[in-house]
């Protein structure tokens, strides 16, 4: 085994006799594009709703619940898919979230959450992760679609205006502070701020 490695290392170290430097540079460049593209394509695929709900935990629980909400069906026909709310747009943030998500995929493979009951048992923890994330990034994913700058208060309901023009406008609170449970059913909220 050790010999084999040493032999390959020697091949790698030796200057190339058969290929020109130009070819090697260009080839390396093209191969780089290829792998980069492949990686990003894989990333793209795992960034679609179809992928998110390909495991039935997601399809039977959260997706089913999303269907009756305003983010699935509404008068304007604009739909929010899972990645719209759960995956950041910037590349570094996206990778960070994906690595975090691999833990969740791990959980699926080893069957920690394979029934509705087990899902509900874990729901509070999972939800708290999302709240913490959205709180930390000032509800970035919501703001990707809902831009505060373009909110027309005169077109909103009185309750909305009253909250949006005060706590939201002065930065005291962010979307997720007031809009928990906007897309899925909530777990037991005892002891969570804002819920009696």
């Amino acid at each position, binding site marked *: 085994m050790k010999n084999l490695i040493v032999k390959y290392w020697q091949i790698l170290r030796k200057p190339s006799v058969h290929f020109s430097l130009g070819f090697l540079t260009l080839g390396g460049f093209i191969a780089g594009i290829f792998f980069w593209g492949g990686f990003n394509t894989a990333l793209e695929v795992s960034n679609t709703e179809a992928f998110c709900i390909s495991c039935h935990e997601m399809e039977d629980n959260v997706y089913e619940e999303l269907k009756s909400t305003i983010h699935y069906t509404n008068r304007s026909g604009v739909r929010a898919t899972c990645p719209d709310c759960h995956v950041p747009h910037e590349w570094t943030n996206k990778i960070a979230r994906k690595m975090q998500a691999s833990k969740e995929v791990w959980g699926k493979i080893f069957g920690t959450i394979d029934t509705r009951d087990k899902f509900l048992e874990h729901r509070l923890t999972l939800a708290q992760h999302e709240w913490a994330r959205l709180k930390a990034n000032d509800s970035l994913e919501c703001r990707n679609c809902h831009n505060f700058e373009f909110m027309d208060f005169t077109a909103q*309901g*009185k309750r909305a205006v009253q909250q949006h023009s005060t706590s939201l406008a002065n930065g005291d609170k962010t979307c997720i502070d007031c809009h928990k449970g906007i897309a899925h059913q909530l777990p*037991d909220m005892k002891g969570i701020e804002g819920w009696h």
Partner: protein
Amino acid sequence: MNKFITLLTIFGVLTASALFAQDIATLRNGVEISKQEKSQPIPNPIKDDIKVGRNYPMQPPIIPHNIRDYQVDLNVNKCLSCHSRNRISESQATMVSVTHYMDRDGNFLAEVSPRRYFCTQCHVTQHDTKPLVENDFIDMQKLIAIRAEKAK
């Protein structure tokens, strides 16, 4: 004899089903069973945030705002996240009145009474639509006024 009973039963069942068929037809507005009835548009809820008057003192007030997808179950009560005693200063909603804290024996509880937990049992939104049945309700005060008028 046996034959007669069988015939009678068949006759009975047939007339009964004909009668019921008519009932079903009225439920379907007389549309043939093989056809799909044209569905009516769903009216929008009225959500202008303007409190609606009450017809009598014990009437549960009408909800003047949107309640789409508001979750009320064992885990959470979205309504109370605005209407409970601790939340009204922030939400500026009307507090649920003291009757909501009473059990059926009239004792005051610390929390909203279980019999008042499911708000939409009593409180509803109104829809922007023509009522199916004419409402001829007359306010008590108007009745008194009419009576006073007659007595004169």
